[in-house]
């Protein structure tokens, strides 16, 4: 089939090739990162310099627009950046190659999943530009606020063309698309492995992608149902979450967080998978504790679906429930400590080479460490009562989500760029990109811990009316955080320059420039539709680096010795 001549549209637009689909997801994800990042710049500027006009935007934000922007920033970074790049993008690009097959198990479903995702993106962007304004009820969409407070009787069908309805619709579409992708990952991994590729020879990336897909599919059902209920509340006037009609707004919080907490692991695991490939390659060392890492992540995955109500300590839940969710949440630190320490042990006594990809990978581990450890504060129900909905939470989740969605994604992009484009990104520009991004990220996120501890609560356009928060040093801390965000932006222009420069150069990358062991490096760069002339055969596990009594410092999975 791949030998036939294909029209441009079949080849690049409605393609069933997993690599094209992976690219499509990644490109949409990167574009949405610009949108989400732009919103962040606008409202951060507004926070640092309240009331002043905003360069590259216009007037200072009114509270309604401010609420809209923070809502979209959160939703976009989670569902339209981290998910499409880490799960769908890298997963599509790499899983078939890493298991040694020609394509996903269901290529047409795969294509459909991308186009549903694309539709969700369009719907979301439309909802941002409606004359009635964007949805401004927070990315957690708590009713009754997200159901317009049940003040007005919804008029059907006019209520469809409102920010909130389209926002929910976009989310439901996005979830649908990711479910279809997840099915493909799991079936491909189970059924399409090449000869010799046993389960425990799979690269850790493939394992983690599959566990992520599994967590996603286990947890997403309730929130899709919830989204439909909320859509009905908004459009035809049902009252699922309206206490005046026997509904319950807390029901939404359970449905949402039963999904929302595991969702963090859905994006964390692909990120750790990327890091888990990069660190062995540039340490010339086998991945430390490979099997244990899989078991630990399975334990963490299980725990992740039973701790959701730690987001509801302040919602007046039964205190005994608080006890249960606190214990579960804090104990998640144990398996993840094992994973992080194993990644560090992989570097121990290695022949480490700090390429840009390795810098981003190490930076991800260091930054994520802060995010993981500060999670213990919030897992404690006692302290969470104070810290909930303050900037302490904002700082904590930026120290988890930024390393995941930005640092790990960039690590992966630098690492696999030669494989999928045939060209290698410039290392000097890459290092500048890394250091600027890493330093400015910390400059942005660290001050937020102090603001949160001072009692600065979230989603406030202007702190001038809160006397305590309107004084020094808090005003200065807000300015520093904003400088951090602007710095992160500047760093990405270095990346853009690097991309343009590299893609325009004529230099061709080697097939296996990093001397890595996994199967994708056996394919052409870029791999053709169908990937292989003859399917590779696997002879060993994925991390045979620096074996003893050998002169070579790596033996790829596909080499018979």
């Amino acid at each position, binding site marked *: 089939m791949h030998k036939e001549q294909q029209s441009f549209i079949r080849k690049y637009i409605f393609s069933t090739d997993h690599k094209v689909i992976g690219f499509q997801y990644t490109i949409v994800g990167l574009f949405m990162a610009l949108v989400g990042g732009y919103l962040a710049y606008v409202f951060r500027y507004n926070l640092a310099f309240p009331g002043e006009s905003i360069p590259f935007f216009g007037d200072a934000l009114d509270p309604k627009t401010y*609420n809209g922007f923070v809502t979209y920033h959160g939703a976009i970074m989670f569902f339209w950046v981290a998910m499409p790049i880490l799960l769908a993008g890298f997963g599509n690009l790499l899983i078939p190659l890493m298991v040694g097959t020609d394509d996903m198990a269901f290529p047409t479903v795969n294509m459909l999943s991308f186009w549903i995702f694309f539709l969700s993106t369009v719907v979301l962007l439309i909802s941002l530009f409606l004359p009635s304004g964007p949805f401004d009820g927070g990315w957690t969409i708590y009713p009754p606020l997200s159901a317009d*407070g049940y003040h007005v009787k919804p008029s059907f069908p006019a209520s469809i063309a409102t920010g909130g309805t389209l926002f929910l619709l976009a989310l439901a579409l996005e979830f649908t698309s990711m479910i279809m992708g997840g099915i493909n990952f799991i079936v491909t991994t189970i059924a399409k492995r090449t000869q010799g590729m046993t389960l425990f020879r799979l690269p850790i990336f493939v394992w983690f992608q599959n566990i992520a897909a599994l967590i996603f599919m286990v947890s997403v059902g309730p929130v899709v149902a919830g989204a439909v209920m909320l859509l009905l509340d908004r459009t035809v006037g049902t009252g699922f979450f309206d206490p005046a009609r026997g509904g319950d707004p807390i029901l939404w919080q359970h449905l949402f967080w039963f999904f929302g907490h595991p969702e963090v692991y859905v994006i964390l695991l692909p990120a750790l998978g990327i890091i888990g490939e990069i660190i062995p390659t540039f*340490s010339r060392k086998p*991945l430390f504790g490979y099997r244990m890492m899989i078991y630990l992540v399975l334990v963490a995955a299980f725990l992740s679906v039973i701790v959701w109500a730690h987001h509801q300590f302040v919602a*007046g839940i039964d205190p005994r429930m*608080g006890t249960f969710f606190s214990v579960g949440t804090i104990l998640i630190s*144990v398996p993840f400590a094992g994973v992080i320490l194993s990644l560090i042990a992989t570097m121990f006594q290695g022949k480490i080479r700090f390429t840009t990809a390795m810098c981003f990978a190490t930076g991800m581990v260091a930054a994520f460490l802060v995010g993981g450890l500060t999670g213990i504060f919030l897992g404690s129900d006692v302290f969470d009562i104070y810290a909930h909905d*303050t900037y302490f939470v904002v700082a904590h989740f930026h120290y988890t989500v930024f390393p995941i969605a930005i640092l790990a994604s960039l690590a992966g992009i630098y690492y696999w760029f030669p494989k999928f484009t045939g060209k290698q990104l410039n290392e000097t520009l890459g290092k500048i990109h890394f250091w600027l991004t890493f330093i400015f990220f910390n400059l942005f996120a660290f001050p937020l811990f102090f603001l949160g501890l001072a009692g600065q609560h979230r989603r406030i356009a202007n702190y001038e009316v809160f*006397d*305590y928060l309107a004084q020094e040093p808090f005003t200065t801390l807000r300015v520093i955080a904003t400088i951090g965000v602007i710095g992160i932006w500047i760093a990405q222009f270095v990346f853009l320059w690097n991309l343009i420069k590299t893609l325009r150069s004529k230099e061709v990358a080697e097939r296996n420039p990093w001397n890595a062991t996994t199967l994708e490096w056996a394919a052409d760069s870029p791999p053709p539709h169908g990937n292989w002339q003859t399917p590779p055969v696997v002879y060993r596990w994925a991390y045979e680096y620096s074996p003893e009594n050998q002169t070579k410092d790596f033996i790829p999975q596909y080499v018979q010795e």
Partner: protein
Amino acid sequence: MKILPDRASSYAAEVDSVFWLILLFVSIGFVITLAVLLYAIFSKRERAKYFTGSNWREYRWVAFGMIGIALADFIILGYELKVWHKTQWLPEETHYKVGVLARQWNFEYYYPGPDGQLWTNDDIIVRPPQDTLVLPLNKKVMVELRSADVIHALFIPAFRFKYDCIPGRTIQRWFEPTKEGIYMVSCAELCGVLHSRMRSTVKVVPESAFQAFLQQKRMEPLATK
């Protein structure tokens, strides 16, 4: 610069102690892990040493790390769950009751009228333009939180107190103010357009002054209703 704001309730110090205890363990964990990471980076050699961590002798160091963090977890949980019990369960005896009714975008405060019950017609009500929750010093106060529209949250940083006000439910919690003064109150749950401006104050006064305040409110004509 103070890390945490002034404390003005009986359990604020204990809540803070949970923070400092966790900070202690987390800092130790962070410093050790970062040191190990740096040590790993500087242990690099000409040819990497081959080990896979698939036997106990190699894996034990990671296992010790996990045991260490598990121990820290249990110490933290053991302590913080005690404080949780103390702060969450209503004390046997509370001296006063106060109701909070949140609406877009202000808080209204209710004190029981002559019948001693909250949420009845004879309640003493503080509502805009007045916006101060007056409370008696060193008395346990039971708080009932309600909302008239969407979800809000009553956040009194100085009391280390924050609970949602949810339509259709009443949440009961308590606090005991321990320091005279005026403290900031904010709404900590996104509640619509003017969430950004939703604020209020708490004023803690001696019990006699509190009684006088109630007396005076009772005398006010019904016009304020």
